Structure formats: structure tokens, C-alpha cells
């Protein structure tokens, strides 16, 4: 390939100056929450492991999740699970060949953003009130 040819080849979007669209943001967040949910899945295994290990370790786990950092992790995980599940369902709908038009995609994007935040705050509020 000569130099001129290389110069005229199309460029992929430059992420730093690319205008964010809710479709791209939600797609990236789906992947990020997917990777991030690794942490609560492992925490869940650790939590279950403390039960056969005895009450001492179990209480330690409970203590960790009663600290501010633990609570923050729990809240973030709850939102992550809800968000990833909702966008996951949307992906399954797309796989069936439905809802691919822009109007539905935009509408469902906002629905997912609002519902995931609302539902997770509602749950966190309920847990805090216990």
C-alpha cells in the first residue's frame, strides 16, 4: 500500500471527540457492569464459604458489609445487577430481530436508565430502613 492510499482510508471514530450517544454509552456500560459484576459474584462465593467455616468468619463478613465501603459496594452491585439484567433482556430482544429501530432503542435506553436507578435506590432505601 502506498502512502497516499493509506491517507485516504477511512478512520475509525476518535473516541475523545466522538459525540456520546445513549446507544453507545449503554452498550459500554453493559460490558463494564458485566466485568464489574465479577466482584459481587466472588463476594457471594466468599460469603457462602463463611457459613461452613463458622459464625466467627460469618460475622466478619457481615461486619465488612456494614461499613460505609461495604455498603457502597453493595449498592453499586445492586444497581449493576439490575442494569446488566435489563440491558441483557434488551439484547435478547434484539437477537430475536425485534426493536432494532432507532425510536425503540432510544425509548428503551431511557427506560433502562431510569428504571435501574429508581429500582436500585428503592431497594437501598428499603434496606437502610430495616
Amino acid at each position, binding site marked *: 500500500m502506498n502512502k497516499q492510499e493509506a491517507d485516504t482510508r477511512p478512520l475509525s471514530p476518535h473516541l475523545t471527540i466522538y459525540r456520546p450517544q445513549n446507544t453507545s454509552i449503554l452498550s459500554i456500560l453493559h460490558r463494564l457492569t458485566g*466485568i464489574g*459484576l*465479577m466482584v459481587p*459474584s*466472588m463476594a457471594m462465593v466468599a460469603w*457462602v464459604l463463611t457459613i*461452613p467455616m463458622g459464625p466467627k468468619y460469618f460475622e466478619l463478613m457481615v461486619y465488612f458489609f456494614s461499613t460505609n465501603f461495604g455498603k457502597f459496594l453493595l449498592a453499586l452491585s445492586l444497581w449493576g445487577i439490575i442494569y446488566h439484567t435489563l440491558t441483557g433482556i434488551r439484547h435478547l430482544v434484539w*437477537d430475536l430481530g425485534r426493536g432494532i429501530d432507532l425510536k425503540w432503542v432510544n425509548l428503551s435506553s431511557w427506560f433502562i436508565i431510569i428504571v435501574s436507578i429508581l429500582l436500585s435506590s428503592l431497594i437501598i432505601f*428499603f*434496606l437502610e430502613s430495616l
Partner: protein
Amino acid sequence: MKKLSFFINALFNGDHQKGTDHWLGQRITSVAMLPFVALFFIFFLMNYGSGYEEVKNYFLNPIINSLTILFFILIFLHLKQGLEVVIEDYISEKLTREIFLKANTVLCSCMGLLGVLALLSIYFIS
């Protein structure tokens, strides 16, 4: 029968070179997990703040114990499948990619196995 083995192959086949199988496997685990996620939220909200004995008795229930085992298997299968796609997307160097893929398989299998063993030991030992 042939169809069944095709689906099973899609679920457990570690060969990430076979795109369609991998894609199908991920759909299977995600659809299968949907009811478990709903159940998880219900039980999580019902039992948040329970003490040691309560939680232990909870997992001594065979239905809840086995459902949780299934959930763990699905979670870590799905995690493995998802991370495989991420690794394949971002790591282009062949050897590094293979190492990451193998490490991912080992890590996810170990975590899943650990969770299942813990649940079984609650039920059978304590």
C-alpha cells in the same frame, strides 16, 4: 437427541474459535439466569440482616440449596463466556490472549466449584 447434544456442546464447549456455539451458549445461560435473578432479589430482600443460624438453616433447605448451586453454576459459566469475548476483543497478541483465556477458565471454574462445594458442605456436613 442430536439437537440436545448441540445445545450441551454450545454450553460447555471451551472452544472460543467456534463463534456460533459460543454465542448460543451465552444466550442459554442468560435466559436460564433470568428467573434466578428475580428469585435472588426476593430472597435477598427477605433475608438481609439475618444472623448466622438463620442463614445456615436457610441453606439446609434442599430446594434453596440446590437452586443456589444451579445459580452459582450459571453465574460462573456466564461470567466465563462474557469475559472470553472481552479478552478476545481487546487482547490481540496471540500468546497473551491464550494465557488470559486459560486463566479466565481456571478462575471462573474454581470460583464456581468453591461456591458449590461450600453449599454442599453446609447441607451434608454441618
